[in-house]
């Protein structure tokens, strides 16, 4: 009954809905058979969940594996591309968007997905992040936000909340965090959404919308790090922190009725912006036309 209609990806994007419930064992068709498993992440880490969401989004859109490039920077999230059977590239710390910009310029027909951690995208790569959004080049940026530097052991990152302890903030953190999605909106990105690894179907749907978007699209995937920041602050196990994501997050609609004070300690999920802005590589094609006319 529920699978009678043939799946139409374009309709799915129009309605904002992917095929659901999807077929089983989707992941296996996209994981690399020549790569060693289990993956490198700690038991219970949310990064694997984000990877699953990316796989299902790609599958839902019925994209060709050859047309997808998955590019990452450094850190726990940087280890994501090696496991999936796309064109994958693990670049230097913070630079993934810049590498992806070059690739997208010469292969505009490819879907270039960039996965970054919060430190990767917003500290060392903050400059590339805002400029990729401003330039509106057709990349899909997925920032996996776990509020810390996990791989190096729980130092404070640009998204660490005020007051929590970190390996480099033993007396409590005093810097104000970056709201990633709001930052991307301000930098001019045409599509910005945020969800969590608990709300994985919503996350996968946002990722699908972001991939289908012509211009720069950002999805912030909120997760947790129970082995570093969680341990230092005694926030419990992976399931405990997963439950916090469930309890502390609210949809955007509800957040609009809340005061600034109330919003401070919650994770707001939803599509923050979805607007049409001319995409960079398409604009550049016009430049080529103009230059050729002038030369001729």
């Amino acid at each position, binding site marked *: 009954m529920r699978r009678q209609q043939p799946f139409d990806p374009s309709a799915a994007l129009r309605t904002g809905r992917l095929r659901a419930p999807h077929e089983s064992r989707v992941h296996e068709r996209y994981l690399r058979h020549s790569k060693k498993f289990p993956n490198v992440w700690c038991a219970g880490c949310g990064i694997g969940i984000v990877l699953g969401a990316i796989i299902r989004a790609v599958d839902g859109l019925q994209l060709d594996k050859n047309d997808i490039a998955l590019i990452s920077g450094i850190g726990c999230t940087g280890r994501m591309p090696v496991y999936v059977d796309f064109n994958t590239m693990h670049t230097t710390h913070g*630079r993934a968007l810049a590498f992806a910009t070059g690739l997208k310029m010469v292969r505009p027909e490819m879907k270039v997905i960039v996965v970054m951690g919060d430190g990767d995208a917003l500290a060392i790569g903050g400059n590339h992040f805002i400029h990729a959004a401003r330039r509106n080049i057709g990349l899909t940026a997925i920032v996996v936000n776990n509020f810390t530097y996990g791989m190096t052991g729980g130092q404070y990152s640009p998204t660490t909340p005020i007051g929590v302890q970190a390996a480099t903030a033993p007396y409590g953190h005093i810097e104000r965090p970056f709201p990633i999605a709001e930052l991307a909106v301000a930098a001019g990105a045409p599509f910005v959404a945020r969800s969590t690894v608990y709300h994985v179907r919503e996350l996968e749907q946002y990722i699908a919308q972001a991939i289908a978007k012509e211009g720069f699209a950002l999805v912030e995937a909120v997760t947790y790090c129970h082995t570093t920041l969680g341990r230092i602050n005694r926030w419990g196990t992976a399931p405990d922190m997963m439950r916090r994501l469930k309890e502390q997050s609210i949809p955007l609609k509800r957040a609009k009725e809340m005061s600034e004070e109330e919003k401070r300690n919650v994770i707001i999920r939803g599509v923050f912006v979805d607007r049409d802005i001319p995409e960079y590589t398409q604009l550049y094609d016009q430049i*080529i036309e103009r230059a050729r006319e002038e030369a001729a």
Partner: protein
Amino acid sequence: MDAATVVETVKAEKRVRPKQRLPRGRVTVFPNWCKGCGLCVEFCPTGVLEQGPDGRVVVAHPEKCTACRWCELHCPDFAIFVTDIEPPSSQGGAGEGGAMTPSQTAKKLPPASGGAGERSAMTPSQTAKKLPLASGGPGGVLMQGDAACAEGAIAAGCRFFAGYPITPATEIAEILARRLPQVGGKFIQMEDEIASIAAIIGASVGGAKAMTATSGPGFSLMQENIGYAVMTEIPCVVVDVQRLGPSTGRPTSPSQGDVMQARWGTHGDHPIIVLSPSSVRETFDLTVQAFNFSERYRTPVILLMDEIVGHMRERVELPAPDTIERVELPGTTVPPEWYKPFENFPSDVPPLVPFGEGYRYHITGLHHDERGYPTNRLDEVQPWLERIFRKIERNLSDILLYDEDGIEDADTLVIAYGATARSARHAIEMARERGRKVGFLKLKTIWPFAEEVVEHAAARLHRVVVPEMNLGQLVLEVERVVERHKVHRVTRAGGEMVQPGEILAAIEEWAR
């Protein structure tokens, strides 16, 4: 579009779904992928799963499964999946899932053979259409070194440039911003030099010949990703028009202060090719050569210019485009599943297939095995490390470019490169007029250092004069291969050229 609509539609779907008896799904766990994090056990709404004695998940109560798939969707390790148990009356459900698969694999097959790996993806029309000739025809054209570099790049097949404005290299970017789109290429001004080199590496992975140009401060920023290009063996050309440093230094003053940085700027042991031109025409030729080396040996190549050569104008006659040798990366003939982008044998330079052509593989800055996957094993790291040095060392006869003049009957040798070679040439002519026997060795390839050439040339001679626009960098290499007491340095690092008189004085002083 928003989450609420999704919830509504899912609810609607649930209403039409026929009531079905439990279990509705069959749960499977891969025990060797499960890390025992407990997420699925904790959140399973009906308590199907439990953690076994070793912490790994076991399906304790399969009869309770509602096929909600929470566990499959949230397992970070892909260690669990749920298959539907369809009610006997259900229709059409089984076949639908399988129907998706063939269309995905069949949509785009990789090219049959030979074609993969050709780096002409961006400009299919280029092969048929002749490049517009840059020179003004017979008699040549008055041209700046930076312009010759830009034209050389286009002649070599460069179709992507990313850069950031910096004196004295900005002209290269300005010219290419105009010229590249005319030939179907692309130009982008990035947010900094780090992004610029990252973008050209990305473009090269996409199959375009790519270049960036900068000067000292920007060259310092690029070091990280030069190492990445070495590690991943992705061809690209980095132009450094040297200016007086350290730090901001003096932007419009010349220098040869980046010689050692070009060799050792990025961390870790690595080979590198560095070329240094001394005239406008040579800048054109060596830019073409830089692209050819980078493609032939799958390596980044640095073109080390200096402010004098970059801003100097000379009348040059550029070669006709069809006479220029253009090297393309060798393509592969193996099918995608056999392709190893970092294969150590039999070739020292394994073929590189651009992204998007059916050869899906992994590129990483970590030490990797032949497939490109990260590795900690010495027996996989060592052969790779040996190969990247071997591919340069075995081809020195191709890579080492230099000019010799009058070495046979000389007693003094002058070794110079870049703009300083112009002063040296002048000084040698003056010395010869005075009856001195002076030989000249002009190095165009400065890294790898032409040890054997220098050693051979200097063996018979009494003295070697090495002028440089720095406080002694390449001379350290000369001193390493020639007896030290023979070597005389003529150094200058104040932002001015080494004068012919200074070099002449050094030749004369020793002759006395």
